[in-house]
């Protein structure tokens, strides 16, 4: 068999990962109502043909619950990582272009946010905004922008010294034009990859904060809630409550990683050979 082109393989991996994640999100959204159904006549069932992930102590179908939980996690991750990366982009660019004072202020803020353990800050912010969906999104968004902001600041600083930018300046192009025409296209790949690689963090943090009880309310089908509830039932031998949702969470995070890494290779082929 002829060896497949590495680039095509990467592309396939990327499309497969994104396709699968989209499928989970859509399935979860479609099943959202069903995931809330409580039916005590089918409680504590082990995995079987009809309920492939089993049911919990309130007779909720763990398969649809896990799917909905993951899709909710993905949506929260998408929203939070999106907001977070926009913050990162703006602050990173400002730091690099607006002169020393602004740079030191923004760097100080980055250090400040980075200095506090993520999960602590997350809990504080989520709690202050009344927990729930809103609290978690704001919490994740406000804590995850720092490393990307740093990265972008460094990129822009480097770009400013690049010859083609200097030439553009000498040619009398306006600052905005330089930024938009010459810098943004260069930054975009970094930014996109950074954005996608932020998802797994966002999802895991959403799961952990909910696991700790500072996120979504317990009747919601969120992956953190499913996992924290399952803890109690492990000693009783109800392993399916933890195993399948946990595996699927790991799988989702790995897929995001695959998607991010593939995208990096596609957009920036040189790094594939490192």
């Amino acid at each position, binding site marked *: 068999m002829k060896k497949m082109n590495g680039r095509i393989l990467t592309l396939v991996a990327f499309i497969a990962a994104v396709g699968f994640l989209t499928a989970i999100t859509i399935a979860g959204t479609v099943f959202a109502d069903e995931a809330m159904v*409580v039916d005590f006549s089918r409680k504590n069932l082990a995995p079987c043909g009809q309920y492939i992930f089993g049911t919990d*102590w309130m007779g909720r179908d763990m398969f649809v619950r896990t799917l909905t939980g993951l899709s909710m996690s993905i949506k929260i991750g998408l929203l939070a990582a999106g907001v977070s990366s926009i913050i990162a982009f703006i602050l990173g660019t400002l730091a690099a272009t607006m002169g020393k004072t602004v740079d030191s202020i923004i760097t100080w803020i980055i250090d400040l946010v980075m200095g506090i353990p993520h999960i602590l800050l997350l809990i504080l912010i989520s709690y202050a905004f009344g927990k729930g969906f809103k609290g978690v999104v704001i919490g994740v968004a406000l804590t995850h922008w720092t490393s990307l902001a740093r990265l972008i600041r460094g990129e822009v600083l480097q770009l400013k010294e690049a010859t083609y930018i200097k030439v553009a300046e000498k040619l009398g192009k306006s600052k905005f034009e330089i930024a938009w025409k010459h810098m943004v296209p260069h930054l975009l790949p970094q930014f996109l990859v950074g954005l996608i690689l932020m998802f797994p963090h966002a999802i895991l943090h959403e799961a952990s904060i909910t696991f700790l009880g500072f996120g979504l*309310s317990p009747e919601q089908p969120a992956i953190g809630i499913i996992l924290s509830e399952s803890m109690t039932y492990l000693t009783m031998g109800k*392993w399916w409550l933890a*195993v399948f949702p946990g595996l699927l969470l790991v*799988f989702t995070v790995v897929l995001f990683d695959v998607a991010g890494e593939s995208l990096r290779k596609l957009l920036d082929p040189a790094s594939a050979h490192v």
Partner: protein
Amino acid sequence: MKKRVLRVILALVMTVSLITGCGAKEEPTAETEESTAIEESAEPAEAKDSVIIAMGKGSEPASGFDPAYGWGAGEHVHEPLIQSTLTVTTKDLEIDYDLATDVQVSEDGMIWTVKIRDDVKFTDGEALTAEDVAFTYNTVKATSSVNDFTMLKEAVAVDDTTVEFHMEKEYSIWPYTMAIVGIVPEHAYGPAYGSNPIGSGRYIMKQWDKGQQVIFEANPDYYGEAPKMKKVTVLFMDEDAAFAAILAGQVDLAYTAASYSEQTIEGYELLSFASVDNRGFNLPAVPQTTDASGNVIGNDFTSDVLVRRAINIGIDREQLIENVMYGYGSAAYSVCDGMPWYNEAAEVSYDPEAAAALLEEAGWVMGTDGIREKDGVKAAFTLMYPASDSVRQAMAADTANQLKLLGIEVSTEGVGWDVAYTRALYEPLMWGWGAHTPMELYNMYHTVDGGSAVYSPYVNETVDKYMDEALAADTLEESYELWKKAQWDGETGVTQDGDIPWIWLANIDHLYWSRENLNVAEQKLHPHGHGWSVVNNVDQWTWD
């Protein structure tokens, strides 16, 4: 590329083995059972008079064993073990004496005179006098943040064995308060008392490892019958840890939840104790308004008395108990089922047709989507539950399922206690109550400061009047009758035919795993709080 794929697969395999490794905890039970059997045969021989008990982490008194900070006399009432009390409640929840030898109340109900025993010593050798009693009550009045002592003006020691309680208002059920306040020594009381308690009760606290365990030893100089259990160790652990400790045979008695009740463990039996630990939800009984300070109060849907009556008979309590509590519970119709002050008129039977008829009568007509409507408004409300309580969550879910059949749409929401109290003023909340005192009724239904009741908006002057009279009654027996009338006097009240501002669902049986040869004597009806009440009578426990 290949390496990457391999890495991913390896990571997955590792996670699977890790998780299933934890999940498969049940398998080695054969082994643990064996070791249990060995320990069991060893233990009764050498340790016939000691017992190890596992309680929930929440049972550990945060501020120590100080009655002023909730030990015994807190949110969860129980006998304080280390300290003596003036009175005690009997198995029928009537009043008997502990330190007291005589209790008298003046004609106008404003002065209680209590004679106490003269032969009682604290465990440091000092005698317990009326001075200590007066000191204790004046201290709890000044400092208690968890229990209400506003009815007491001051306690005065008349002589060594006589103490007088001067009241702010008539309070006929004062003996029930005297049953939970442990008497502390005036000479040895200070900020550190909670961690080094000295009392005159059945047990001495020997050791307290915060967050882990507390060890009690029998008081050798106890004035009453000597405790049969000489050493009592209480461990504080989570539900699943307590269950694991039972599987490993490390504890003799452990609290557990109904969800564990289907398990069987060799050498242990499941004990189930009836309780007044009830669960129910409030239905705000006034239409929605916003008060002067901007708080929302009342609920338009539940302010209709016919709706409240329909909900009360539209819930099949037996089914709920079967579903949520695996049958370990009993139907509740009031906050005080089975108490001497309980009015049986509160009992109703499940009748979905009558409930539907009531809703029709009130004008709530079935819509096309199965949800009733009236003037374009949907018959719907949010039922909150404390987010950390899985039993109340399941009860809320089952309630929602059952009311759906009536055409009422209920959505459930888990909330923290930081917002639960204020939101309960306009939305139903799944509560837990139950104490050995009629004050529960007062807290639930009596208005405060000319407004409405504290926890859920409700006003009924007749009900108020009966409760005021009950507190002013000359004898407890008289007050019981008045408490009953406050619930239902034939015309008005808080029951089905009355205003029904609270729906009571179930009393939760308190479940414990216990070694088969441990005999825990006769237990009182347990109050709210799945913890210390089981050891109220630990001094009478025996090993067979």
